[in-house]
């Protein structure tokens, strides 16, 4: 299927300021197959964090990009990302979700592997011919594996650019997300594995959508914060000044608002002030200001979100056009006091996760969008035009979503070079060049 079986699914009218997405993009199984091939199989995907495999022998297993993987730290402290399928006949080799191992044994024929994946033992090896290449029969590593400040990424395209180049302008924002405590973050105990009966791209839009916050999350921002006696004015501001939505290139984007810590975190104001002074000492006043005095939802193309209000890392993968598996974790500074750490847990679950006061309403809303998309033939277009006429769209606008869709559209058409993800009309571009 080299030709796309569809006409243009995106209306990107930068002159008149209209951006629309055809809802078939959310419903057609043929489109999902192209997305897997052109996007997921060629992009860098978040797989896990070094803190999850802190000691030699520590491992986790999970599906990343649809493949079962083992993330493991070998005896030399080196992390590996191995395909969790026996090179002999395919069985899943490691069947535990997490733990510590001396080696991995496939129970089917008892082939066993060292922590770095190399084949250590084959029962009855003398029965194979000299052409049997033992050294090539270890657990196969993923084609590309890189560590950025503890975040482990994989890529199934051997020819992909390096991770730092891939992150591009998003790297600066990723640093803010990881440096906020002044020390390295770790993934804390208690992960969230849930799902959504909705297309994977709906969760991207939702995760960087400032516009939906007060309507969808009324119960959090109005009811809950009132119920706990929170001073919402001091958090959100009496005359709320919206921040910005930014297209970072490569489909990555961010929404950023000047904002104080959430009301729950303000209960630990003294400790946060102490952390902030450490940030100033470590990074300088300006950089510390950038880290500490804004909230951000950062989208790393194609399926990774980091949200600073709650310090979450969230990724997901489509099993069908209308079904995704979601994994979310809290990434918190490893040297937090027990009191501050507990406050961060309270803060996280007050909003996020399958039982928080925010996430279930997002799940319900996006599943509602997906059910609504059954009308795509009669009602083909979703509108994502907000703020298109502005020089600098706000965090309540939708440039950050258009940035994703522009990159998506280019890749789906096989255009793998740089994509102009901005709202600038082509004429402006030509004049600038």
């Amino acid at each position, binding site marked *: 299927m080299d030709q796309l079986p569809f006409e243009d699914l995106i209306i990107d009218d930068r002159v008149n300021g209209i951006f629309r997405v055809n809802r078939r993009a959310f419903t057609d199984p043929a489109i999902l197959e192209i997305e897997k091939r052109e996007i997921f199989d060629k992009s860098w995907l978040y797989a896990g964090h070094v803190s999850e495999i802190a000691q030699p022998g520590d491992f986790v297993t999970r599906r990343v990009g649809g493949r079962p993987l083992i993330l493991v730290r070998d005896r030399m402290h080196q992390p590996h990302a191995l395909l969790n399928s026996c090179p002999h006949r395919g069985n899943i080799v490691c069947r535990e*979700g*997490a733990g510590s191992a001396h080696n991995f044994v496939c129970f089917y024929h008892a082939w066993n592997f060292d922590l770095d994946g190399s084949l250590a033992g084959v029962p009855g090896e003398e029965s194979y011919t000299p052409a049997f290449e033992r050294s090539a029969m270890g657990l196969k590593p993923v084609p590309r594996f890189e560590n950025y400040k503890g975040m482990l990424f994989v890529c199934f395209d051997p020819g992909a650019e390096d991770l730092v180049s891939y992150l591009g302008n998003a790297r600066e924002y990723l640093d803010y997300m990881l440096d906020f405590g002044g020390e390295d973050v770790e993934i*804390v*105990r*208690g*992960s*969230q*594995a*849930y*799902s*959504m*009966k909705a297309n994977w791209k709906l969760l991207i839009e939702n995760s960087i959508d400032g516009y939906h916050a007060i309507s*969808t999350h*009324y*119960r959090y921002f*109005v*009811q*809950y914060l009132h*119920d*706990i006696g929170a001073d919402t004015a001091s958090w959100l501001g009496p005359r709320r000044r919206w921040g910005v939505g930014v297209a970072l290139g490569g489909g990555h984007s961010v929404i950023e608002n000047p904002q104080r810590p959430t009301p729950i975190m303000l209960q630990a104001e003294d400790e946060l002030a102490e952390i902030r002074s450490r940030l100033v000492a470590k990074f300088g006043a300006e950089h510390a200001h950038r880290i500490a005095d804004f909230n951000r939802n950062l989208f790393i193309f194609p399926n990774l979100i980091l949200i600073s209000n709650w310090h979450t890392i969230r990724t997901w993968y489509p099993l069908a056009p209308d*079904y995704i*598996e979601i994994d979310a974790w*809290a990434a918190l500074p490893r040297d937090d006091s*027990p009191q501050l*750490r*507990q406050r961060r*847990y*309270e803060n*996280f*679950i*007050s909003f996020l*996760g*399958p*039982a928080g*006061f925010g*996430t*279930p*309403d997002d*799940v*319900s*809303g996006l*599943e509602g969008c997906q*059910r609504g998309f059954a009308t795509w033939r009669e009602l083909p277009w979703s509108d994502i035009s907000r703020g298109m006429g502005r020089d600098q769209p706000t965090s309540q606008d939708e440039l950050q979503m258009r940035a994703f869709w522009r990159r998506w559209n280019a890749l789906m058409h096989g255009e793998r070079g740089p994509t102009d993800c901005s709202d600038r009309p082509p004429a402006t571009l030509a004049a600038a060049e």
Partner: protein
Amino acid sequence: MAGSVTIGEIERFFVDEAALLDEWRLEEWLALFTEDGRYLVPPLDAPEADHRTTLFLVADDRRNLASRVRQLLGGSTWAENPRSRTRRLVTNFRILEDGTDGVRTTANFAVWRFQHDATDVYVGRYTNVLVRGPAGLLFRERRVILDLETLRPHGKLSFIL
């Protein structure tokens, strides 16, 4: 409470409580909690963990739980508007420990949830710490330990288990 509670009384408490939840009589259910009561749902990958040192799915103190109930009854909790239909079967009642600061009890549950043409089943066990209040038993702690490996395809836990 040592020795003052019978398995029959525990069973009646669990069964009546299940009816309150299935009938969405959440304010009456909330009144079953002591002022220092907690409603806890541990993460599925650390079911025996402590909420002070682990990221739970729910770790409500009484104030949070009261807000949860108000939100669920308020009409702007879109995940439960329209409300799910639920039906819970609660069985296998046991008294684990009958001590001076409360009685630790456990029971198994299966909760069916119906909403938007989908059926989800939540299976697990409760461990409750109950104390004697002026008008009957009260929760000092309600812990919902799910046997599910993941919340798939459930996607959410938007009502009270």
